[in-house]
């Protein structure tokens, strides 16, 4: 869907005055709601709503062989599906480029912040490690899928329990249906914030039509242990200059801290 020129003009006229179509402030998010354990069979799961954007993320854990270049580390895999039920223009079939990019940016934000201590997910070095699958499903698309997906993923990880494993015929396997009381080893909690630019004005948490009108988009992943650290950046479409970047990093950082506070994580 391309938005009409008149809609885009309206958005531009509003944004130039610092206003938005749904009367939010430029840096204001829509209401964020979440629900945990939406699926009993998942090792952990969370549904996140940002306004009308609705995303569910689930964690499944298995035992696999580690990668050759990290024989003592657990495996982390992120996948995202843009379900056709979520939006008229999502089509059935394997993930398209947008879904792949979203999954890879979420992956980077989690992996590079070392949110999960992958070394503690080693069972037998070089032979058996836990593999963590984060599967993200978009249930309703009203813009800013990436922030919602990231929040759903970290909430699901925080509420995951390792499954029971047993040695069968000399091989470690998961005994599904039996969870342990052991949570995932968490080092810190990262947050991803995405900003959009229209008519040289930056704003956060775009809804669907704002997102379609936006001329530039960038996501930044942070952690806030002792000091703020940047772990992931992805510039999507558009151009950004140095001075803008300097300003928006501060804005995103402030917002990231705020979101953590709101969610009490």
């Amino acid at each position: 869907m391309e938005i009409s020129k008149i809609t885009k003009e309206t958005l531009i006229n509003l944004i130039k005055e610092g206003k938005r179509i749904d009367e939010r402030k430029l840096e204001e998010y829509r209401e964020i709601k979440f629900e945990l354990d939406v699926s009993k069979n998942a090792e952990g799961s969370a549904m996140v709503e940002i306004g009308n954007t609705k995303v569910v993320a689930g964690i499944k854990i298995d035992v696999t062989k580690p990668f050759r270049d990290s024989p003592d580390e657990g495996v982390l895999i992120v996948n995202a599906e843009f379900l056709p039920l979520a939006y008229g223009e999502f089509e059935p079939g394997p993930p398209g480029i947008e879904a792949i990019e979203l999954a890879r940016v979420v992956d980077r934000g989690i992996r590079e912040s070392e949110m999960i201590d992958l070394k503690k997910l080693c069972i037998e070095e070089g032979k058996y490690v836990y593999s963590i699958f984060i599967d993200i499903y978009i249930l309703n698309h009203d813009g800013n899928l990436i922030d919602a997906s990231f929040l759903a993923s970290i909430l699901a990880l925080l509420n995951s329990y390792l499954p029971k494993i047993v040695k069968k015929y000399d091989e470690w396997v998961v005994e599904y249906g039996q969870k342990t009381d052991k949570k995932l080893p968490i080092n810190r909690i990262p947050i991803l914030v995405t900003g959009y630019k229209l008519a040289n004005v930056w704003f956060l948490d775009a809804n669907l039509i704002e997102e379609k009108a936006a001329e530039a988009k960038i996501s930044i992943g942070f952690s806030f242990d002792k000091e703020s650290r940047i772990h992931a950046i992805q510039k999507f479409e558009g151009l950004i200059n140095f001075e803008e970047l300097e300003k928006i990093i501060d804005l995103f950082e402030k917002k990231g801290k705020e979101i953590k506070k709101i969610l009490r994580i």
Partner: protein
Amino acid sequence: MYEKRFDGRAFDEIRPIKAEIGVIENADGSALFAFGDTIAIAAVYGPKQLYPQHLQNPERALLKAYYDMLSFSVPERKKPGPTRRSLEISDVTTKALEPVIMLDKFQNCVINIYIQIIQANASTRTAGINAASLALAHAGLPMHDLVCSVSVGKVGDKLVVDLTKEEEDYKENGVKSSTDIAIAMLGKSKKISLLQLDGNISKEELLKAIKLARQACEKIYKEQIKALKQIKQKWV
């Protein structure tokens, strides 16, 4: 502590650049770009009619970049065909190049850019973008500017330009201690058209690294211009 670079370069020094135009005779435009032993070639085909027809846009041409690596370009054989990684790089490459081409000059058309990595030692997407930018200019497409791309990052506690694979995988006491930032900037306006980061870095260091990238891009821009001026003219 990372005191001296593995290959002896200064911290803000890029590997020797090689830029050549017209390496693929059949293409409408083509180029090779290398940072030391990271070598990329790019070929442009188009503008040509876009099919299937429902994708045609009467207002502007569609630009599509395809990035991939030859199976033997990396130490461990890469299975031929697109991967999630190559699809993502194709997408960000398209977005890095889009702003400089006057796509509104062409109706219902597509411009395809095919990028192949012949030999990889990190910074492949940036070499690919530099090659593609040259290939687009070689194809004679109307452009606002060239795109210059380089990787910068933090290895140990040092900010460095044009990372090698060894630096990308740098570890201190068994812990990964490397941040990799891929940047593309427009040659004249220095606006950023590609920015990707993964690692662990503070805001101040990031901004410093971008400034280093800016200096490096100036050098790359000069090399690109030089290469373009050497295009051989056919007289018969």
